[in-house]
């Protein structure tokens, strides 16, 4: 023990001096929390995972969690406006991102154990574990407030993928600083997220049909909304994970980098189908719920008006500066402004708009939409009986609204979810071919393999003769949802609905 350490220990009165109480630094230069992490690791309580563990050697994860970029996710809900339909849906992207990190770690540990006799595989896992876990943690950092609604409003500039890439690679970002400090290559982290990482099965852990992201959000969203649709046997899925050669790799391409994350054919067929059904039901009943999508349409129309007013310099003065800048710039915020761009700021803006008494039609309309949103007065309705031609019907509906003088994106909004039951991921694997095969334009799906990593018997689950549900869903005629949400006149006070 040094002289100073002894002095501080002896003179406990020093703790009463202002500022000293916060300076709980030992003379190894570590804070108390850093010291605790080094000795014991860290646990975080979580409603889905129970306990999320950080090992003593994972200080990089804690440092990333403590960045302002990641802490901002506490102020961005996972499901945007779903809480208007499902009041329990208040969970944040912060909690979800921790959960994804947890699942990613468990998948890595499982693969390391399963392939412990394949040093070419465990070597890849060891080399890239930190990159994969960092990517799992950071994959949603670029999300704006209200989840995907903001992106739908400003597709080119407010894309969460672009913003996430910036957060990871921009030197002004604390995330970038932490990654470099811990000798983790930021370009490798962003490559995992954007799908260009060269080791396929590692990339699959964060972004694929079996990834940690959807494994967490299905369970978390179902739990917080109070629905049972999203439940599936996560433990058995992890237990059944294995590696297999990509079905459209040519024979002889025995490169561990070409392996894909698969489910063991002998154990995982039914768990795979359960996962598929869970996702399908959650999509239909929750993510694309008519009332929820109606509120998104409401927000999108409000954003369109706000953009118009921001460009003209006419947004109410009480609008928070960051929100004004966002709409004026069409989504292209500087990094420092993006850190302040969250849901509390947007709600403050809605209050400012609702309270503003402007003379012109646009200002009154914005005030009406903002007030209705804050007080859950439903102004948009849709009808859903398109008959056999939903795409044609929705287009003709838009034409009729246009002919009636209605303004697109203000008086009505077309919502085509482009989602189809099971196969909203496009497995193009119909036979073994090559990347040059003009029929093969993708290689996504839930694959089954026999677990021997260089075996060539990897198939999509719907091609397994024991699969019951997936083949039927592939042939299903369920097609994308097509709705047109219209502004109902005059707006009326409607009793709250919760489903």
């Amino acid at each position, binding site marked *: 023990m040094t002289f100073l350490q002894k002095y501080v220990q002896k003179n406990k009165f020093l703790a009463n001096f202002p500022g000293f109480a916060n300076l709980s630094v030992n003379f190894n230069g570590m804070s108390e929390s850093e010291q605790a992490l080094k000795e014991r690791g860290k646990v975080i309580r979580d409603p889905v995972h129970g306990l999320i563990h950080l090992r003593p050697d994972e200080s990089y994860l804690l440092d990333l969690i403590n960045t302002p970029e990641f802490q901002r996710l506490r102020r961005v809900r996972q499901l945007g406006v779903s809480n208007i339909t499902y009041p329990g849906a208040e969970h944040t992207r912060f909690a979800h991102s921790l959960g994804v990190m947890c699942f990613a770690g468990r998948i890595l540990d499982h693969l390391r154990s399963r392939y412990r006799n394949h040093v070419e595989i465990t070597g890849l896992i060891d080399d890239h574990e930190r990159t994969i876990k960092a990517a799992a943690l950071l994959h949603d950092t670029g999300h704006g407030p209200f989840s995907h609604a903001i992106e739908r409003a400003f597709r080119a500039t407010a894309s969460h993928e672009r913003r996430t890439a910036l957060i990871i690679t921009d030197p002004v970002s604390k995330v970038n600083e932490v990654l470099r400090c811990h000798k983790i290559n930021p370009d490798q982290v962003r490559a995992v997220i*954007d799908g260009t990482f060269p080791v396929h099965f590692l990339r699959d852990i964060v972004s694929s049909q079996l990834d940690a992201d959807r494994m967490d959000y299905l369970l978390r969203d179902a739990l917080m909304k109070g629905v049972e649709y999203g439940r599936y046997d996560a433990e058995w899925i992890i237990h059944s994970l294995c590696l297999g050669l*990509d079905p459209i790799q040519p024979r002889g391409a025995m490169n561990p980098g070409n392996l894909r994350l698969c489910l063991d054919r002998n154990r995982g067929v039914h768990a795979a189908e359960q996962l598929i059904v869970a996702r399908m039901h959650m999509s239909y009943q929750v993510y694309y719920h008519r009332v929820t999508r109606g509120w998104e349409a409401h927000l999108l129309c409000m954003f369109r008006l706000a953009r118009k007013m921001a460009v003209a310099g006419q947004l109410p003065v009480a609008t928070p500066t960051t929100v004004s800048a966002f709409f004026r710039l069409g989504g292209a915020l500087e990094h420092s402004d993006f850190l302040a761009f969250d849901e509390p700021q947007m709600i403050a803006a809605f209050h400012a708009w609702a309270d503003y008494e402007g003379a012109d039609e646009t200002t009154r309309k914005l005030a009406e939409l903002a007030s209705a949103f804050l007080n859950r007065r439903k102004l948009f309705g849709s009808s859903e009986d398109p008959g056999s031609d*939903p795409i044609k019907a929705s287009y003709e509906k*838009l034409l009729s609204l246009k002919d009636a003088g209605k303004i697109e994106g203000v008086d009505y909004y077309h919502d*085509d979810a482009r*989602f189809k039951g099971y196969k909203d991921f496009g497995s193009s694997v119909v036979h073994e071919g090559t990347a040059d095969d003009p029929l093969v334009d993708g290689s*996504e799906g839930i694959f089954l393999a026999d677990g021997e990593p260089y075996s060539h018997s990897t198939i999509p689950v719907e091609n397994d003769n024991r699969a019951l549900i997936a083949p039927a869903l592939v042939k299903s005629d369920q*097609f994308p949802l097509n709705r047109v949400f219209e502004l109902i006149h005059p707006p009326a006070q409607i009793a709250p609905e919760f489903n």
Partner: protein
Amino acid sequence: MIDHPIVRIGLLLRRVNAIETCKKFQKIVHILQVMGAPFTESYDFHHYGPFSSEFRREIEAFVSEALIVETPVIVNGLPSYSVCPTEKLLSLLEKDPDLIEEDWVDWADELNRKTPRELEGISTLLYLHQRLWSQDTWRSKFEELKPQLAAQYDWYESEALRLLEIAGKKAA
């Protein structure tokens, strides 16, 4: 222009008349999107190039409603589909008297004259551009992702840059 897939897919197919192979269709739409055309489908990189499951679902829905027809063809000895608009789709376009063709429709024509492999190379580079990879990283990323196309990298790069310039954009 009304924001509806019948408009953007209809204008594209009306101009080019037919697109051979699913792969070409995917890549043409992706490249047009990066150039600024109003295609809103999200693309990911699925090991074999930019791919949109949303767009695939849309095409299946269009086939189901007889708005487009997929005719089996053989391309380089391998089975594929040729995609054409139907009269039903074309007549729907005629219903909007205010519908005009924007510049991107001309670009679609040029892109359709390229081979699937050429489009795959260009689309890969434009995906990197879209995801904010700086131009000085493109070569090494491309060689990593598309080793079978690396020999023609210089051509793909010059085409990608030329297309961005046509659209009034620049690489990062």
